[in-house]
């Protein structure tokens, strides 16, 4: 089937934002007011890609302290044997750590100096509820109950400029994560590029969607803005998504498919600075081995393929990948060959911008917090460094405080 790709002039003409809404004085996020012209990112724009590991990733079977007897004693059925772990050399002054044997993709990145492993990441008084802990990571606030925007949402608010592309995009099957909730606009959430197609709308339908209402509740305004933005995004994605061939081969995983589409949007100059996706299933309370290693294989293989494709496009200097999970898991395995909710865990950064090696120090299994790994690095230290050193915004404006850099960027 041949698709009709509108020229810029047609695109301008059909832009809902440029017609009805502005004409009626509806206040609109800046990026909607312009057109595809702004969709091509400036060549030096740096892009942050986040992969959220949902469910609480078992850090100890991801970055394995294979040199510590306590680990082997605590994990009689789940332990990774010393000869199976993919050993990380002592960069960062930490010995006795290795990656899960399924993470050959990450091991290769590490060996090539493209992976930063940050151990012992968490926050004070760890919460072991999935939802509250994820909210803490998403809001970058230890009391997230009253916080309505996310740390990346604040980045969106700080960087959404008149005429710019949408600053962030979620490519996932899930609803918008709290991390990307912004005060000024609805960050586009796209399950797939293909799901984002819209035929012609009649003028009456366009007007029914866009015409500013004389009275409107907050919810109605929210729905209306999102409707308008979805139509605008559909036109915008349609406009840039002509180049559909991936720049490298990807393995056959769901995460790989999502990252492949992110690569295509980046390559086509969609213009977002932050892309967000997730990998779910890390809540491994029972028979962990059956699911955890395949998930790590999916993570490692998908990210490695993504970076290879980014490199093939000549964009390797512009893309940084970051992963996190809401918490790690208890040191001692439970009676179901699984692990229960824990505390500190590793983060990964991948790409040329990261400082390769292991940061965050050794994993101390002698001094635990209620059976869980204690944090030595506050996740907001990592956020702070990435915000200042990569995204280019003032971390204090996003995090509401000062956090010393974790030393994860080159």
């Amino acid at each position: 089937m041949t698709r009709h790709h509108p020229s810029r002039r047609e695109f301008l003409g059909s832009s809902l934002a440029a017609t009805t809404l502005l004409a009626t004085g509806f206040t609109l996020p800046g990026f909607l007011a312009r057109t595809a012209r702004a969709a091509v990112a400036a060549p030096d724009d740096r892009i942050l890609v986040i992969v959220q590991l949902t469910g609480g990733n078992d850090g100890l079977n991801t970055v394995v302290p294979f040199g510590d007897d306590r680990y082997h004693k605590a994990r009689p059925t789940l332990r990774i044997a010393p000869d199976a772990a993919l050993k990380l050399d002592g960069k960062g002054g930490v010995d006795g750590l290795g990656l899960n044997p399924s993470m050959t993709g990450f091991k290769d990145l590490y060996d090539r100096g493209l992976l930063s492993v940050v151990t012992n990441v968490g926050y004070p008084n760890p919460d072991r509820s999935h939802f509250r802990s994820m909210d803490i990571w998403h809001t970058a606030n230890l009391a997230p109950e009253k916080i309505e925007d996310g740390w990346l949402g604040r980045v969106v608010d700080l960087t959404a400029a008149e005429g710019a592309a949408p600053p962030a995009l979620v490519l996932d099957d899930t609803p918008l994560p709290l991390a990307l909730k912004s005060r000024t606009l609805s960050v586009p959430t796209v399950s797939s590029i293909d799901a984002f197609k819209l035929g012609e709308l009649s003028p009456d339908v366009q007007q029914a969607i866009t015409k500013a209402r004389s009275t409107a509740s907050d919810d109605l305004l929210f729905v209306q803005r999102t409707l308008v933005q979805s139509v605008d995004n559909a036109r915008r994605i349609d406009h840039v998504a002509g180049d559909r061939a991936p720049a490298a081969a990807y393995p056959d995983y769901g995460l790989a498919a999502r990252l492949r589409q992110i690569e295509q949007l980046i390559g086509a100059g969609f213009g977002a600075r932050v892309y967000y996706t997730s990998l779910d299933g890390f809540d491994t309370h029972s028979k962990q081995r059956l699911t955890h290693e395949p998930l790590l294989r999916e993570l490692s293989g998908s990210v490695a393929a993504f970076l290879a494709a980014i490199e093939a496009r000549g964009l390797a200097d512009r893309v940084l990948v970051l992963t996190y999970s809401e918490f790690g898991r208890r040191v001692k395995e439970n009676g179901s060959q699984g692990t229960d909710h824990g505390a500190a865990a590793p983060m990964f950064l991948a790409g040329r911008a990261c400082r390769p090696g292991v940061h965050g120090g050794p994993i101390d299994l002698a001094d635990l917090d209620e059976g869980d790994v204690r944090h030595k690095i506050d996740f907001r230290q990592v956020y702070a460094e990435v915000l200042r050193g990569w995204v280019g915004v003032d971390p204090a404006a996003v995090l509401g405080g000062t956090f010393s850099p974790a030393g994860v960027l080159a």
Partner: protein
Amino acid sequence: MTPRRTSTLDPYQPGTHGPWDTPAVCHLLRRAGFQPSLAEIQAGLKDVGPAATARRLVQGEPETSRARELDDISGSVERSQDINAVRGWWLKRMARTSRPLHARMTVFWHNHFATSNEKVMSAPLMMRQLETIEALAMGRFEDLLLAMSRDPAMIIWLDGDSNIKGRPNENYARELFELFSLGVGNYTEQDIKEAARAFTGWHQRQGEFRFFERNHDSSTKTVLGHKGNLSGEDVVSIAVEQPACARFLATKLLAEFVTPHPNPDLVDAFSRCLRDNDLHIGNSLEVLLASRAMFDPAVRRARIKSPVEFVVGACRSLETKVPVKAVVDSVNQMGQRLLEPPSVKGWNGHRAWINSSTMLLRLTGVQRLTAPDGAGMLDAAQLRSRHGLDSKQKVLEFCRAVTLDSSVPPEVAPSIDSLEGQHDGQLDTVLREALRILMSTPEYQLA
């Protein structure tokens, strides 16, 4: 001393507190069910006020033969082992049922006890959980909570089979307090540990609940201040007796039926109502649905339709065919994969339904439904003949009623009015055009 009635739950008196007109009737029917059909609206208008309508909704009318036919095939759906078949059967029954409130409450409890087939991996067990929920959805909460504690799909979902004396698995106990009965802050980590022991030995074998005495920890436990050789049944009773339980349910039920942001007075009042009714859901809802709080102008159109409400509501109000695959696919893609909720917390609902991807799907769905072939669902000619819509005025009046409660916003009204001067002799086209405009409005996304 007679308890002082809380004014916010006083009955809404038509005339004194406001009219009992099409917008009021549609509001109640949509909240306690789905986007109503013309017949449902007309039946509501014949009631003297919301009390009678609420009573009919809670008691439930006899099922139609078309809905009963679906009950007859439930066994074969269960045996099919196909989770999409179960979804389709469920959605089709929602579209056909004469008991829309029961249908909504069944989805509500599915979301509350959010169990996913991704882990259970058994369509028959998911179907049986659904039937258990449906049977108990409108009764006492304690009965439902106990039934869920013994439900085989739930036991698989929250690792009951590995909850064994000496090595308890806390998964069910934690969610019992956090998500099923009390909410965060109303129990301690120690309560979870002790409650987990009370549920040791509650297993399933071949899809049947079984209590394994030898796996059960019968030593003393202390849960929420109660000490003794507590059983799982005891823990359920202790949980539902907590004042926090009524508050927790009140907040969730108010979000479902009245407003996502209930004020503290309303939560207090409805918590008391639930407690006074022994946490009997149907009896409590009957009070709520006919109350002044229900018809507060501030709560009208203040809820965002879920994908199920959006799709099933369109089917019911437009009396469409219900092609199972298309309906299942639509609801799935709009973000509500029934029987596979995103986590044990269920769907967040309200604004979380809305993003630029799901909005696009709703728009394209309306475009397809109102195309000349009606997506194989909407039969304009039949709809017109069924309701005697033999003039443009009648067609437009019908369309306004079954989409926007006959109160079309002034920004949209001229487009609809102008259809009276177009498409002469093509009433089916007028019907489809009007529906396409009305159902694309932001207002139509709100319940």
